[in-house]
């Protein structure tokens, strides 16, 4: 847990649902975490977790085939030193019971993104998406 008191802050941004948006998601996160004065090492871990979640939206919720104008929203909130990152998308509804990473000892390409998210974050929760959204993922981390 961080000894620094991070200021309360919320920012959100919409991104096109495609793989070339992932660098923009990372830039957005880095900018917000800079404002929150999050330590460099933790910052890059959080950026990885968020980018992996955004990648899952592109790859799984939309199967790499989203309409050109389709959007996903990433919202980063910090309150009382607790970081909450929310994702909203209108892809195929996610069945949380089917979101599993591969066995880590079974070395093969793929299946690591969810593992990284779970390793880095304290909690991963799929909530009911409210219209117009279908999926609402929330990642939390105590700073």
């Amino acid at each position, binding site marked *: 847990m961080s000894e620094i008191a991070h200021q309360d802050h919320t920012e959100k941004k919409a991104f096109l649902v495609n793989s070339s948006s992932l660098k923009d998601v990372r830039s957005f996160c880095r900018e917000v975490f800079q404002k929150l004065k999050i330590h460099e090492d933790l910052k890059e871990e959080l950026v990885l977790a968020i980018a992996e979640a955004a*990648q899952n939206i592109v790859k799984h919720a939309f199967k790499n085939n989203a309409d050109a104008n389709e959007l996903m929203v990433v919202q980063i909130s910090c309150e009382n030193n607790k970081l909450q990152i929310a994702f909203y998308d209108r892809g195929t509804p996610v069945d949380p019971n089917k979101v599993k990473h591969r066995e880590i000892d079974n*070395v093969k*390409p793929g299946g*690591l*993104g969810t593992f990284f998210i779970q390793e880095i974050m304290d909690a991963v929760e799929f909530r009911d998406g409210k219209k117009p959204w279908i999926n609402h993922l929330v990642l939390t981390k105590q700073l």
Partner: protein
Amino acid sequence: MSYKVSEEGNVATIHLDGEIDMDVTEKAKEVIFPHIDAGKEVHLNLSNVQYMDSSGISVLIESHQKALEKNTKVIIKDVSKSVLKVIMMAKLEQILNLE
């Protein structure tokens, strides 16, 4: 992502530069795999790669496994601290050839 390739004897040295994510993995494979398929020993220099996600890690795993099939190897050189952290999170530091 940009890259530079040099060859000497049976060794192909590939310098990757930039951030390796899902958006560039196909390009990374196009750069790396032909050398493995040709039976070359591939030295993959990652000193200028400061960010790699699970897609990039998958390229490293696939390259390693493809090299084993071809009786050659991929050696990952000068990996940056941030990328090493991701490799270790995936528990691959004993699997991949790191120098």
